[in-house]
C-alpha cells in the first residue's frame, strides 16, 4: 500500500513538471509584463526592477531559477502585492477554497447518493421520474446560473442568506450549493444506474429470500456493492469542484484562490499565477491517488 502510494507520487511528478513548464511558457508568451504602467517609468528604474526579479535574464535561465526555487519550497514574491510572498497569499486563500470545496463535496454526495438510491429502488415510479428529471436539470445548469439564481431568490428577495463574502458558516451555504448541486446530478444518475444493476443480481434475491428486511437489503447489501463506481468518479469530481470553485468565488466574492488567479492573470503576476496553478494541479493529482487507494481499500478484488 505504502509502496503503491509512493509509486503514484512518482508518477505524478512528470505531470506537475509539465503543468509548471507549460504554464511558464504560456505565461511569458502573453503580451505585456507585470511592471507595465500607465506612466512610463524611467528606463533605469525598469532595469532595476527587472534585475531584481531576474526578468532581464533569458527565459530559459528564468525558468531554471524559478524551478530551483520551487523545489526548495519557495514560490517567490508576488509582483503586485508588494512585500508578500506567494506562499503567504496561498496560506490565506487556500483554506477558504478548501472549505468551500469540502462543503460542496458534502452537497454532491449527500444529495446525489440518496436520490440515486431512492430513484433506483422505486424504479419508474413518479418519484423516480421526477428525480431523474431533476438530475438532468442539475447537469445542465451552469453553476454561475445556479449561483446567481440562488443569490437573487434566497438572498435579495427572501434575505435568508448573505449574498457574498466569507465570514460565518452561513456564508458558505449558497456557494457550496451552487458549486455542488450540478455535480450532484451526475452522482444521482450514476448511483441510480449502479444500484439498479445490483438490485437485479442473484445475491439480492437470496437476501430477500432468506427474509431480510428491505432496509437491510438496500443499505447493507445493495449500496455496499454500488459504491465502487461512485468512488471511482470522486477523483474527477474533485477536479471539477476545484476548478469550478473559480466562478463561484467570483460570484460570491469569496476570498479564495480562484479569485486571486483571475486578478493575477490580468496583472501578469507571474509567481502568483504559477503558485495557484501548481497548487490546483497538485490537488488534482493527490485527489486521484487518494481515490484510487480508497477504491482498493473498499474493494477486496482490487490489488494495488
Amino acid at each position, binding site marked *: 500500500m505504502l509502496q503503491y502510494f509512493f509509486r503514484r507520487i512518482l508518477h505524478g511528478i512528470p505531470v506537475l513538471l*509539465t*503543468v509548471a513548464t507549460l504554464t511558464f511558457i504560456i505565461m511569458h*508568451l502573453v503580451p505585456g509584463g507585470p511592471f507595465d504602467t500607465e506612466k512610463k517609468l524611467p528606463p533605469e528604474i525598469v532595469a532595476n526592477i527587472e534585475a531584481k526579479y531576474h526578468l532581464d535574464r533569458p527565459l530559459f535561465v528564468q525558468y531554471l531559477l524559478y524551478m530551483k526555487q520551487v523545489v526548495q519550497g519557495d514560490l517567490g514574491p508576488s509582483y503586485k502585492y508588494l512585500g508578500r510572498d506567494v506562499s503567504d497569499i496561498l496560506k490565506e486563500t487556500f483554506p477558504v477554497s478548501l472549505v468551500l470545496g469540502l462543503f460542496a463535496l458534502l452537497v454532491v454526495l449527500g444529495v446525489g447518493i440518496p436520490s440515486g438510491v431512492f430513484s433506483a429502488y422505486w424504479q419508474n415510479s413518479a418519484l423516480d421520474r421526477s428525480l431523474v428529471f431533476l438530475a438532468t436539470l442539475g447537469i*445542465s*445548469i451552469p453553476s*454561475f446560473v445556479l449561483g446567481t439564481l440562488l443569490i437573487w431568490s434566497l438572498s435579495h428577495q427572501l434575505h435568508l442568506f448573505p449574498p457574498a463574502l466569507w465570514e460565518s458558516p452561513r456564508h458558505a451555504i449558497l456557494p457550496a450549493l451552487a458549486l455542488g448541486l450540478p455535480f450532484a446530478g451526475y452522482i444521482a444518475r450514476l448511483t441510480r444506474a449502479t444500484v439498479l444493476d445490483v438490485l437485479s443480481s442473484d445475491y439480492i434475491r437470496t437476501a430477500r429470500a432468506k427474509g431480510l428486511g428491505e432496509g437491510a437489503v438496500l443499505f447493507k447489501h445493495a449500496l455496499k456493492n454500488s459504491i465502487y463506481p461512485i468512488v471511482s468518479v470522486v477523483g474527477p469530481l474533485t477536479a471539477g469542484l476545484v*476548478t469550478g470553485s473559480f466562478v463561484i468565488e467570483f460570484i460570491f466574492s469569496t476570498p479564495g484562490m480562484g479569485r486571486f*488567479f483571475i486578478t493575477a492573470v490580468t496583472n501578469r503576476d507571474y509567481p502568483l499565477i504559477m503558485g495557484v496553478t501548481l497548487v490546483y494541479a497538485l490537488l488534482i493529482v493527490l485527489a486521484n491517488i487518494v481515490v484510487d487507494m480508497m477504491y482498493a481499500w473498499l474493494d477486496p478484488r482490487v490489488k494495488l
Partner: protein
Amino acid sequence: MSRWSWQSRLSGSFLILVALAAVFAPWVAPYSFETQNTFNALALPDPHHWMGTDRLGRDLFSRVIYGARVSLSVGVFTTLFAMWIGTVYGAVSGYVGGRVDNVMMRIVDVVFALPDLLMIILITVLLGRGAWGIFLALTLVSWVTVARLVRGEVLRIKEYTYVEAARALGASHRRILLREIAPNLLGLLIVTLSFRIPVAILAESTLSFIGLGISPPFSSWGTLANDGWKAIKFYPHLIFFPSLAIFLTILSFNFLGEGLRDRLDPKGG
C-alpha cells in the same frame, strides 16, 4: 430500437429553432443588436421589447438572438475540431498499439491532468480575448476526452473477425481504418458530439461571464449574463433571459444526446 422520447423531440425542435434564429438573426431579430435608445433604457419586458432593454436601451431579445450566433458557433465548431483531432489521434493510438500507443496515451494523461479552466484562461489571455482564443483554448483541453473514447472503441473493434478477415485479404492499414473500423465509430461519435457541444458552450459562457471570454461589441450569452450580473438586484431580467437561453440549450443537447445514445449506441451508458 426505442422510439424518441418526448424530451428528445422537444429538445431537437428547440435546437433547430435556436439554430435557425442564429443563422437568420438579421431577419428574425426585431431590432439591431447595437441600436441604442437611452430614453428607453432598462425597460422591463413589454410587447415591444419581449425581454426588456439593457442600460443603453438596446433590445435584449435581439441581443440574445445575436448572442446565439456566437455561443452556438463557438460550441459547435470547437467540438467538431476537437473531435476531429481526438478521433484521428485515438484511432491511430488504438490501432497501432504497443509502444506507440503507450507514449500517445501518456501524453493524453498529462493533458488530462491539467487544471483545464486555468489553462483555458491563460491561453485566452495569450491569444487575445476573441472567439479565436476561446476556440483554440477549448480545443486544446477537450480533444483528449474524445481520444480516450475512440481509442477504447478501436481497441475493441480491431479484434473483430471481420477486421481480421479484411487484414487476411491484404487490405492496407488505411483501408482497414477508414472502411472497416470508421463506420463502426460513427454512432459513438454522433452521441459524443451531442454530449460535448454543451460542455463547450458551458465553458465559453462561464469564461465570458467572469469577464475573460468574448468581449464587446460581440456578445455571447455569457457576455450578456455578465452585463446583467452587475444589475441583478434591481433589473434581474437582464441576467435572467441570457441565463435561460444557456440553460435551455445545454439541457436540450443533453436530452438529445440521451435520445441518440438509446438509438445509436445501446451498449453505452
